[in-house]
């Protein structure tokens, strides 16, 4: 197996007296689709921002694409960032610019000096940007102002902007938290498709367990800045899922609602009991043991 694309070890981060991250360990292999699961304030965003060098750790190591991120600065940091796409919860498009120009800003790292206006980008880049817009299904909106688009469309533009970087890793920080359910589904599906097409490694933070279960290959649960869970999603049984809720979520109402939902779906999973049992054994996993030890 090749070296992991992301390696976080013993990462601490404190803002003043609050501990945002506390001894976080995370290893992600190339091509993995990982969900960071946790409530708001659990440290998901802070962890993601460390992976892109937007935050400096208080202590610990963050290796991304073979580079020790905290030791980078200036041009080398920008080069690393250009290899890592970042999708924000609030899209963060420049509202007064056209959709196309917003996508083009993803190419800035490869250009020297400032860019103003569409025509300051090379023709090849404009073509590439249009291609990415087409990929997210918004080619016909290329010359509209970004703020004339709906939330879901804006997030797709933001994804196109990240693609413009031709990234190897895509980080997404609560990409659908500001969207309605239908747009959420579209955007999440789009990220998966694109990841599959381009062989991207994806680390995406979410706070909804049900969404995470259906989407990611692997779930890493965070709570109060600590990793409390790290498991593959494939073939998880009801007991394990409930365990995830117990670890990650706190709201009982949410727990109950999901329990009901699961009761309905588990009937389908019941068909393959052998698999379930096997998984249940396997999932006396290290994370659980760790947590118990504490």
């Amino acid at each position, binding site marked *: 197996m090749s070296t992991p694309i992301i390696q976080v070890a013993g990462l601490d981060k404190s803002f003043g007296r609050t501990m945002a991250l506390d001894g976080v360990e995370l290893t992600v292999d190339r091509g993995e689709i990982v969900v960071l699961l946790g409530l708001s304030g659990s440290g998901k965003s802070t962890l993601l921002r460390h992976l892109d060098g937007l935050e400096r750790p208080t202590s610990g190591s963050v290796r991304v694409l073979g580079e020790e991120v905290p030791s980078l600065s200036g041009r080398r940091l920008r080069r690393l*960032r250009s290899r890592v796409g970042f999708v924000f919860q609030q899209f*963060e498009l420049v509202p007064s610019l056209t959709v196309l120009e917003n996508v083009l800003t993803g190419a800035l790292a490869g250009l020297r000096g400032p860019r103003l206006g569409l025509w300051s980008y090379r023709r090849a880049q404009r*073509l590439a940007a249009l291609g990415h817009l087409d990929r997210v299904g918004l*080619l016909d909106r290329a010359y509209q102002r970004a703020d004339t688009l709906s939330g879901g469309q804006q997030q797709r533009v933001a994804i196109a902007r990240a693609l413009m970087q031709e990234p190897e890793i895509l980080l997404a920080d609560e990409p659908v938290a500001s969207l309605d359910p239908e747009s959420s589904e579209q955007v999440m599906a789009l990220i998966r498709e694109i990841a599959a*097409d381009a062989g991207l490694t994806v680390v995406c933070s979410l706070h909804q367990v049900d969404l995470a279960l259906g989407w990611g290959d692997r779930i890493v649960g965070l709570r109060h800045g600590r990793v409390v869970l790290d498991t593959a999603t494939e073939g998880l049984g009801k007991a394990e899922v409930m365990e995830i809720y117990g670890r990650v979520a706190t709201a009982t109402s949410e727990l109950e609602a999901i329990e009901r939902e699961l009761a309905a779906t588990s009937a389908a999973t019941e068909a393959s009991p052998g698999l379930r049992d096997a998984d249940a054994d396997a999932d006396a996993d290290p994370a659980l043991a760790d947590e118990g030890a504490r």
Partner: protein
Amino acid sequence: MTALAPAAAPKLESIAARAPRRRASPERIAAGLTIVALVAASVWALVDIDVSIAGIVDSWGNAERFFERVGTITFPEPAELVSLTALTLGLVLTGTLLAAVISVPVAYLAAGNTTPGPAWRAIGRFITVLTRAVPDIVLAMAFALMFTLGSLPGILAIGIHSVGMIAKLFADAIEQIDEGPRLAVRAAGGSKLQEFTSGILPQVLPSWIATVLHRFDINLRHSVVLGYVGVAGLGLEMSHAFKSLNYSLGIGIAIVMFVLCVVMEIVSSLIRRAMLGAQPTGRGLGDRFVRRVTSARPRTRSTVADASADAPAKVGAASPADLQAVLRRPWDGTRIRNVAWLWGAAAVIVAGVAVCDIHWADLVTVWAKVPAVAVQFWPPSFGSYDWATMSAALTETIAVALAATLLSFVFSLVIGSFAARNVAPNGGIRSGARLLLVGIRGVPEVILAILLIVITGLGSQAGMIALAFGGVGLLGKLIADSFEEVARGPERALVATGATRLQVYASATFPQGVPALIGHGFYLIDTNLRAATVLGIVGGGGIGYYLLNAGQGSNYDVVTSIVLMILVVQLVFEGLAVWMRRVFR
């Protein structure tokens, strides 16, 4: 429970005695006394300047006699008038643009979210304070010594003095941006400069353009005063006319200037409205800039081939040919509008700079003269004047400023209250009051002052009335906005108790607005101090008269001491304002 029961009168009294008195802090008392003292001083100044009905009737007589003596008002020859107007507009435009260009890096340093560090921020702030503090007239005098001929002294005086305000407002705009897009550029690996141009600039550009247009209006009004110290244009011609006692021509030019200011104010506010209304000026300006830098769009076959090779392998529904087609941006209404704006703006700027006929070579040779000029301004001295004369003149200027502020305040409070949505009895009255304020703001008060002073022959009275009039436009709007910003809850509560409109105003709206009123009052004093100095230059008496005299007599050391005196007074009032803001928060 017992409190609700009806109680006997003596018992109530004893309850009142038990209620603890509010502890008045000494600082609050001192601040209150200072305000009382300031108001008393203003009343005294008002009496001393002798603004009375009798005085006004008297001045009417003066005006009649003046017009009998002058006869008809004459204007310059049409051709000359056009060239003078063009020169004035071009000079002000170039100076304002120069200030805008200088202001960009200064604002970048001074804004809290872009500054590289606290020391840089202090430097940025220092530049904004310093450039605002030195009067443009004094700058113009100094530059006139360095540049023998031409329009550069005026351009540089306007350009440097305006940096203070423009950079301050630019920095405010930067501090108000949404940090998200900037963060996105950083996350994509953009450099600091790219963060600025792609993440910040598009967000602040509309506000920046509005600021520059606003400053253009101010500078145009002020250019008439610059004429008194030799800056070419309508102002210079007017001062020449007055100096040679050709009053009919002087008044004619003043009227032209007056109309010009009003027209330009309307034009700039129309532009601001059109721009801030909807469409992206940001991209527009970018387009213009870029189209000049890069030549025409590349259309050769080879580029196309390269492009398709570079294009990503994965495309959705669209074929490379489709993408090529989309690459050509459609000429829709927005684009046509933007491009029209751009070329219009570019044409105006080029024409404005061209009409100034700048001696560019002077910019290279001037540096050798700087030491010699600096020596003339330092050390400060009073020359042939004594301290008593100067302090009396300064007192007169302060008196004019205070009296004008008091008059403005009284009228603004009335008009401003009616212009506030939550005070005005109905929409009609509110719109009427707002319209009145806009109308008053549109009148260039310096030119009004010149006209009044020349016509009535009464220096400080006429100037003070002009200042007070102009102040109503500014202060009335600020007061109206402040009243509209007070919390609505207390008003609703009083309405619910059955209070009358006036009672609600007095008990809920006004008390909440008091801190803002005090702040605005001090702001107006600050503005009026500068304006009162300027009045002296155009014949209104006070310290400005000595400033002009010293400049024309080449006693630049006296100029320095006068500027320092004015600065000290301004700092004192600035300090008072800061203190008041803290105490009456």
